[in-house]
């Protein structure tokens, strides 16, 4: 199952709480509005009741007349929405407002003095009416009173419409706000995630071969990924080129000695005489195969998450081995290798490199070889390890220094060995993106070989 996109998840993570928050706000505001609305309706009804009480008169028959002060009062208009009745303490209807005509409403109730009641009723036409009743002791003359129930009712229709309008407006405004906020967030996230999109595009380009690597200037969080990917790509490219080269070289270089052998295979008498040539060419084939196979075997390349190989134990072992191998010389091998320095690469590779360089130094020196390892903080990570091997021999003449590392060239034919040792070193160093520097040693007067490799 494909995981949902980061942008979508972010947006969703922001949108959901936002919408919930707004919904909650709307709910609260709605509640407040309704509550205020109801309170105001009750107040209105209470005032109507007071008005009724003031306007009521006892008439000749013992009933009630209500002389409304306002000539345009809604109580006079049938079906106006504002209604009022007066009942006595037994519930008998004493007066009802003209507005009640045709509404079919039964307003009022029996209430004790001091009692109050608020309820909702439904009119014949389906509209709702809010009704407030008060039980009062009505003083109609000095010392004379009657217990009456005054009731005022108002249609809730206008209130309902107001609420509806309020809700509409609120919903409208809030919806607009939510959309505006979401749109802004979406735009901001697009901008923030632009580097991620660029990474996507660049990776796609690399996959199709349109690009060789990822660009630079990624933000801190992605810089590590981009750099690691580039290193991986570079390493893989080197590896492939290396294999291709090796196989090509092997095929080519074997052809010549084979051709010589073939040409020399003559009659039985001739074969015996040419045994030396055959032997020589077979030696060459053996050497070439050996060399190319070793090259193919070199692991090479910096892999991500590579553990560091401590250099000191390897150099110590090599020193002991070389003292034995070169036992015919009174050899002194001085080591200046701090224990904490390590090589970022394959153990076999660094051992071959050090072995070849040290062996050469031991062959060429008079009596002393010095090995020192340093970490150069000024150089770019990870290529900071610097391994220097110096000897007190004759050294390599300046003119020869570049030639010596070419394949098959030795500076002096007298010392045995196929002369391929340093060429191999150069190739392996190149595979790690490092450097091989050959010069003269100021300290010991002979040759100085420096390997710059990834390390820490």
């Amino acid at each position: 199952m494909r995981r949902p996109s980061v942008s979508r998840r972010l947006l969703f993570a922001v949108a959901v709480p936002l919408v919930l928050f707004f919904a909650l706000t709307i709910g609260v505001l709605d509640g407040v509005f309704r509550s205020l609305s109801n309170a105001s309706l009750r107040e209105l009804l209470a005032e109507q009741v007071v008005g009724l009480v003031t306007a009521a008169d006892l008439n000749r028959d013992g009933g009630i007349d209500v002389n409304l002060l306002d000539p345009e009062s809604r109580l006079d208009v049938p079906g106006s929405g504002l209604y009022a009745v007066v009942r006595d303490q037994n519930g008998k209807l004493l007066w009802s407002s003209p507005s009640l005509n045709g509404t079919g409403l039964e307003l009022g109730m029996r209430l004790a003095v001091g009692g109050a009641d608020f309820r909702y009723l439904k009119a014949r036409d389906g509209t709702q009416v809010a009704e407030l009743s008060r039980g009062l002791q009505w003083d109609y003359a000095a010392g004379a009173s009657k217990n009456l129930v005054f009731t005022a009712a108002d249609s809730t229709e206008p209130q309902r419409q107001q609420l509806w309008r309020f809700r509409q407006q609120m919903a409208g405004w809030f919806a607009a706000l939510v959309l505006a906020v979401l749109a802004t967030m979406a735009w901001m996230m697009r901008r923030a995630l632009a580097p991620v999109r660029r990474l996507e595009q660049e990776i796609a380009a690399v996959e199709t071969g349109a690009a060789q690597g990822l660009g630079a200037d990624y933000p801190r969080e992605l810089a590590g990924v981009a750099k690691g990917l580039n290193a991986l790509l570079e390493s893989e490219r080197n590896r492939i080129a290396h294999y291709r080269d090796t196989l090509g070289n092997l095929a080519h270089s074997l052809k010549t000695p084979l051709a010589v052998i073939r040409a020399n295979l003559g009659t039985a008498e001739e074969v015996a005489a040419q045994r030396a040539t055959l032997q020589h060419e077979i030696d060459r084939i053996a050497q070439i195969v050996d060399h190319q196979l070793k090259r193919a075997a070199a692991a090479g390349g910096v892999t991500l998450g590579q553990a560091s190989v401590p250099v000191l134990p390897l150099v110590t072992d090599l020193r002991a081995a070389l003292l034995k191998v070169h036992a015919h010389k009174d050899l002194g091998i001085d080591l200046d290798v701090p224990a904490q320095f390590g090589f970022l690469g394959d153990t076999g590779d660094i051992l071959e490199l050090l072995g070849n360089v040290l062996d050469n130094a031991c062959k060429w020196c008079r009596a002393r070889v010095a090995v020192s390892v340093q970490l150069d903080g000024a150089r770019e990570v990870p290529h900071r390890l610097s391994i220097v091997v110096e000897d007190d021999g004759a050294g390599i003449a300046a003119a020869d220094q570049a030639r010596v590392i070419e394949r098959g060239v030795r500076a002096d034919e007298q010392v045995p060995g196929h002369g391929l040792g340093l060429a191999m070193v150069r190739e392996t160093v190149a595979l790690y993106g490092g450097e091989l520097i050959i010069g003269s040693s100021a300290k010991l007067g002979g040759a100085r070989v420096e390997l710059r490799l990834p390390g820490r």
Partner: protein
Amino acid sequence: MRVLVVEDEAALREALKSDLTAAGHTVDVAADGEEGLYAATEYPIDVAIIDLGLPKLSGLELIRQLRARGKTYGVLILTARDSWQDKVEGLSAGADDYVAKPFHVAEVQARLAALLRRSGGWASSRLRCGPLELDSRAQTVTVHGQAVELTSFEYRILEHLMLRAGEVLSKTELTERLYAQDFDRDSNVVEVLVGRLRRKLDPDDTLKPIETLRGRGYRLSLPRSTAA
């Protein structure tokens, strides 16, 4: 000289045997590691040629075991891969030199000859005489725990003196330890080396590890402790 050849590839084994016999040596052969170990420990061998890739018991293990059983003769290893990893492993297991395959028999013979002159191997990995300690595997020396840098000749002289601590060794005997060929010998070299050793091991002249016995030779005057 009695030479042991331990090599599993028959053609190579027979070729070595016939070449070495023709050169005047007595040759014993073994085709696998176990046979080789038996021969290496039971016969009075002077030098051994051991292939690293053996069946039954690996070449490395064979070397370790023969050293562990006190055999100190020279061991030449044959390596197929010619990688430094193989060489270092073989040499630190107890071998003294290596030859990469495919080799010229002449090269093998030359290295054998060199080994025969100089005594190879070591009786035990560590030698201690008083405050002097010598580690044969790492070819290092410490005095009172402090490391001392020695050249390979200085090391070999000291090792021999320590192996025969308390005995007098003549200049000739010590010189033999250094050189494979007679004509390379410099009769003064032992004197120079002993002088250098004294300066390096005993800079303030308090220890006096090496005694000169006029007309007879040198002796290590520090008592040998049981090796660690």
